[in-house]
């Protein structure tokens, strides 16, 4: 845009036809660049707010819906013969709710609906069950993945789980109590004679942690494995928690309110 001619005799700043002062081009460019940078900063901050808070809010609503959905499913199911394990009912389709996870150590009344599948589509709604791994109560490895930060942050404090801590899995007609491996008295994650640690940090490519027996051998016991990212806010490694089934499943018919472990 051409600057209007400056009358040398007058002490008025240059102005456009509407009488507004115009700064030199370089000043306007510098201001524009500065505004863009400040704007970019605000957008990045807003993204952090989104990741840490907004996804939690959205996830809360999805979890509420899923919870209703799975309760409805359980209510609609013809009552299975007492003691029929979920195994015989088979895994649900990918994206369908599978079970409810209760972990008292992660907070009073902490529970999340677990979905079948570990794609982002499922993980944004709640912890996901690795397709093809064991079902609740089954011999093998019930492997679950969940977000550490954002999306409801289900496994934010998974590193706080101590040896012996209960992880309760609720299905249509039973409760299964798993316990984090290791010496409950000593707090030593590596104390289990099977050699499977209660907690470990591995490379993202280490799929042996979700093998039927963590570490790679044949299925021998009913394990439960949680995987999440590590360290927080990073995806460089994976935090892994291993637990093993404690006793047999408890039928809901006998114990509708759940095992005492739920009280924390």
């Amino acid at each position, binding site marked *: 845009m051409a600057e209007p001619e400056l009358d040398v005799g007058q002490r008025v700043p240059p102005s456009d036809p509407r009488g507004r002062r115009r700064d030199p081009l370089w000043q306007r460019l510098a201001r524009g660049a500065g505004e863009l940078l400040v704007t970019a900063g605000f957008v990045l901050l807003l993204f952090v707010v989104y*990741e840490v808070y907004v996804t939690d809010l959205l996830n809360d609503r999805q979890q509420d819906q899923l919870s209703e959905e799975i309760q409805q499913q359980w209510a609609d199911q013809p009552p299975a013969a007492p003691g029929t394990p979920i195994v015989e009912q088979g895994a649900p389709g990918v994206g369908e709710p599978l079970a409810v996870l209760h972990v008292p150590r992660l907070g009073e009344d902490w529970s999340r609906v677990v979905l079948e599948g570990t794609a982002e589509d499922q993980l944004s709604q709640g912890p996901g069950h690795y397709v093809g791994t064991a079902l609740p109560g089954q011999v093998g490895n019930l492997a679950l993945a969940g977000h550490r930060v954002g999306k409801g942050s289900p496994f934010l404090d998974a590193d706080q789980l101590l040896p012996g801590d209960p992880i309760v899995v609720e299905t249509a007609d039973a409760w299964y109590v798993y316990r984090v491996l290791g010496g409950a008295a000593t707090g030593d994650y590596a104390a289990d004679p099977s050699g499977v640690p209660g907690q470990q940090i591995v490379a993202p490519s280490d799929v042996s942690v979700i093998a039927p027996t963590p570490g790679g051998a044949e299925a021998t016991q009913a394990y439960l494995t949680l995987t999440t990212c590590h360290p927080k806010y990073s995806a460089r490694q994976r935090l892994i928690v291993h637990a093993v089934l404690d006793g047999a499943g408890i039928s809901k018919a006998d114990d509708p309110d759940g095992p005492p472990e739920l009280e924390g």
Partner: protein
Amino acid sequence: MYGWIWRHLPGNSASRAALALVLVLAVVALLLFVVFPWVEPRLPYNDVTVDQ
């Protein structure tokens, strides 16, 4: 940029301020509910699964 927008909003200062607020909220909503959900799965730091 912001000066240009301000000058092109109609009305007096009060109506401009109200319109500017509406614009800001619209942009924030667009980012939160459209742009960020689209961008997020493309970023690398949200992987929580083990795979090869």
